[in-house]
């Protein structure tokens, strides 16, 4: 009993990663790490991405995580695991860096 008019095609990684990259570039761009602005950056990246993702109009719930880290030679590992429906849900991680900042954004899209 499916009344959807178009093929939904699941979670499309290219669209999502494009949105994230644009949002990170626009927010951090060529800036160096500044402790007092980091909070504002993460908030703005995540909120911009979310609003663009909701404009895609797909029947999905999204979880977005953004980690911004100063380049200091320190190491960091991130892992994620999910219990969901492989046929409809998907995730994508974008790792962005410039001279003084590492930024990792992960998006998880879960079908309703």
């Amino acid at each position, binding site marked *: 009993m499916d009344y959807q008019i178009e093929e939904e095609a699941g979670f499309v990684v290219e669209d999502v990663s494009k949105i994230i990259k644009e949002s990170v570039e626009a927010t951090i761009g060529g800036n160096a790490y500044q402790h007092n602005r980091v909070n504002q950056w993460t908030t703005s990246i995540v909120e911009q991405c979310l609003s663009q993702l909701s404009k895609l109009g797909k029947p999905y719930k999204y979880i977005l995580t953004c980690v911004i880290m100063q380049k200091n030679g320190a190491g960091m590992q991130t892992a994620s695991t999910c219990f969901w*429906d492989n046929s409809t849900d998907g995730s994508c991680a974008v790792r962005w860096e410039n001279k003084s900042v590492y930024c990792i954004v992960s998006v*998880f899209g879960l079908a309703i």
Partner: protein
Amino acid sequence: MSDKEKQQRKEKRVVKVPGRTKDSISTVSYIDELGHHDDNARLAPTMENTYQMGPYKRFPANAATDILKDVLTSYLQEEKYEVEWSQKMTKTLCEVIRARVKELMIPRYKIVILVHIGQLTGQSMQISSRCLWDTSNDTFASHFFKNSSLFGVASVYAIYFE
């Protein structure tokens, strides 16, 4: 919901797509299910209507926070940061937390677990997350652990499957 992770792991590959601009580099990584994507999208089982308005049993965020606290302290208490070890440990922690959250047996909830382990060398960092979901049914829990050489952050997100 598909629970055949071990079988499907062999059919997946992690795809990394690099990109470059004037002063930044970016990499996109995602898991690509070889050859199965189209089939699965069409054959996804259409469920019969249950006429259920909301979850009968809500996800207990407190219990989840306790699980996270417990797992992080027991696995990371006396450890020192090492690259190889922490790569394995993040994955192990994810699996352990997922198994324990599944034991809570909350029906119709999808779970996403995120674990970060990092070295403490005086650098500054910020981790934030936002979600687009149904606030009445969906929730999350997170916990932060620190010892002298490393820190660990674990988050669980529970999404109701309507």
